[in-house]
């Protein structure tokens, strides 16, 4: 009488008891050993002599406590055009010195979230321009230097940077242009089609660019727009290679592609040379057949007329 309820209860106990460690194990497997710092990037217009308050949020997502070190550094545009900015060498000498985090180092526990207030004091005599800086939160991964034996050792710190792009306004010029345009001229069936261009920020402002590659047929109808992946931020003097693939293209025709960008509300456009998309073989065969058939019929009719004329004679 009680067998079925007992078996059911036992089954439930086994299932629930088994699920709990499974869930915990699943959590352990996917739990990252990461440090997280937010916001990733803050863009703001500041005034000379003004003081600002902000904060960065640091999270220890690792399984162990450690001491987090907070430092500020200058940023500068990177040499390679895939990177937004790099930390300038050495201690902060520029905008990085404007920043005063309320925390310099702090022991953080696993899963702890740390709000770090940061005070920014803009010098009263600063000239108009763009001043990039970063607040870094770092962890020392290994410090073998505590071992005093002879040898060569490396102490490594891993850190995340919260970027601050501060603009002091005053007569700054927004200017950008496109160069190194690259596109196919003739596309065979199955060819990959990629349109590329380098956007150069040669003004003295921080710019944000978004846009697309517009592909119009020679007739001007049925234009396609290939959206760029995301908006692109550029420091003054920086450049970024923009690329987009043309996957869904018509089977045949002449096309006029062009890059159409909005760079901080200013249009920046350049046209590519014409692109000719060759048709697939079966379309060529159809075209040939469509052209040849009337000619064949006409020749046969003419031949029959000639034969009929001969018979009458």
């Amino acid at each position, binding site marked *: 009488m009680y067998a079925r309820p007992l078996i059911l209860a036992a089954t439930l106990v086994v299932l629930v008891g088994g699920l709990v460690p499974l869930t915990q194990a699943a959590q352990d497997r996917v739990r*990252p*050993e990461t*440090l*997280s*710092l*937010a*916001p*990733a*990037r*803050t863009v703001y217009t500041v*005034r000379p002599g*003004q*003081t*600002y*308050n*902000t*904060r*960065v*949020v640091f*999270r220890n*997502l690792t399984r162990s406590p450690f001491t987090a070190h907070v430092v500020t*550094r200058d940023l500068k545009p990177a040499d*390679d055009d*895939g*990177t*937004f*900015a*790099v*930390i*300038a*060498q*050495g201690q902060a000498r520029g905008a990085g010195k404007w920043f005063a985090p309320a925390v310099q180092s702090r022991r953080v526990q696993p899963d702890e979230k740390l709000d770090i207030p940061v005070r*920014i004091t803009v010098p009263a005599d600063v000239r108009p321009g763009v001043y990039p800086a970063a607040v870094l939160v*770092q*962890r020392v*991964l*290994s*410090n*073998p*230097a505590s*071992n*005093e*034996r*002879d*040898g*060569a*050792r*490396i102490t*490594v*710190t*891993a*850190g*995340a*940077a*919260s*970027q601050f792009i501060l603009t002091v306004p005053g007569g700054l010029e927004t200017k950008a242009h496109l160069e190194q345009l690259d596109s196919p001229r003739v596309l065979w069936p199955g060819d990959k089609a990629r349109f590329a261009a380098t956007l150069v920020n040669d003004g003295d402002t921080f710019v944000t660019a978004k846009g697309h590659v517009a592909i119009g047929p020679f007739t001007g109808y049925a234009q396609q727009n290939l959206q760029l*992946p*995301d*908006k*692109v931020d550029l420091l003054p003097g920086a450049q970024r290679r923009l690329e987009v693939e043309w996957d869904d293209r018509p089977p045949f025709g002449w096309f006029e592609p062009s890059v159409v960008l909005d760079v901080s509300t200013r249009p920046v456009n350049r046209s590519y040379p014409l692109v000719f998309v060759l048709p697939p073989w079966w379309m060529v065969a159809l075209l040939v057949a469509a052209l040849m058939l009337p000619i064949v019929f006409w020749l046969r009719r003419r031949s029959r007329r000639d034969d009929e004329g001969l018979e009458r004679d």
Partner: protein
Amino acid sequence: MRTALPWLPLLLVAMLLGSSQLGIPLPGTTSPADAAPSVSGDVEIVGEVDKDVQIDGSGCPGGSLVIGAAGSIAPGDPMVQTAADCSVSFSSNNSALGASLTVQEDAAGGTGPAMKCTIGACAGSSLEDFTGANWAVTTGSHFGAQLMSAAGAATPTWATNPQTYAVAAASTACSTSSIAAGTCSFRFAAASDAADVPGAYEALVQFTAQAN
């Protein structure tokens, strides 16, 4: 008083216009120049705290950061690497452009080459920063970092081993082009000249993840 009443609105308008042109605040108002700051003079900047950048150095254990067996590299030794990879994962959800991982000498390392003497008779000595692929033709003492592999969403910017890069100014080793995480693995290599003075040498290397 009754004769002045009709003129009051006109007088008020004139005062307001005069205030705006001369920058003089009326009682109970603030001039445009003072409108932004609070009483303390501070302004609050609020960033997007749901957009973060992440770095994971758990794949870089201490044992991977010693050059040569038990950290011993003798004067005259040719290129010797660290014994295991130092793997770093990184990502950012700031935009679809992803994140970059840069390598440079920590500012606390001061000036000069990255690998410097810290203890011993070698005071003032260092191993020269090295960028290149062919260690066999180099003479003298050298130190640099090598990219061994890129995995996940990471695309290498550095060429892989045996190409070596000086750990000095910031250099982008890897990057991602989406919000997915990438992992890059590194080793460090050094060569010692026969004239190098034995002692404890140390390089301070900084990996930094930033949004693209």
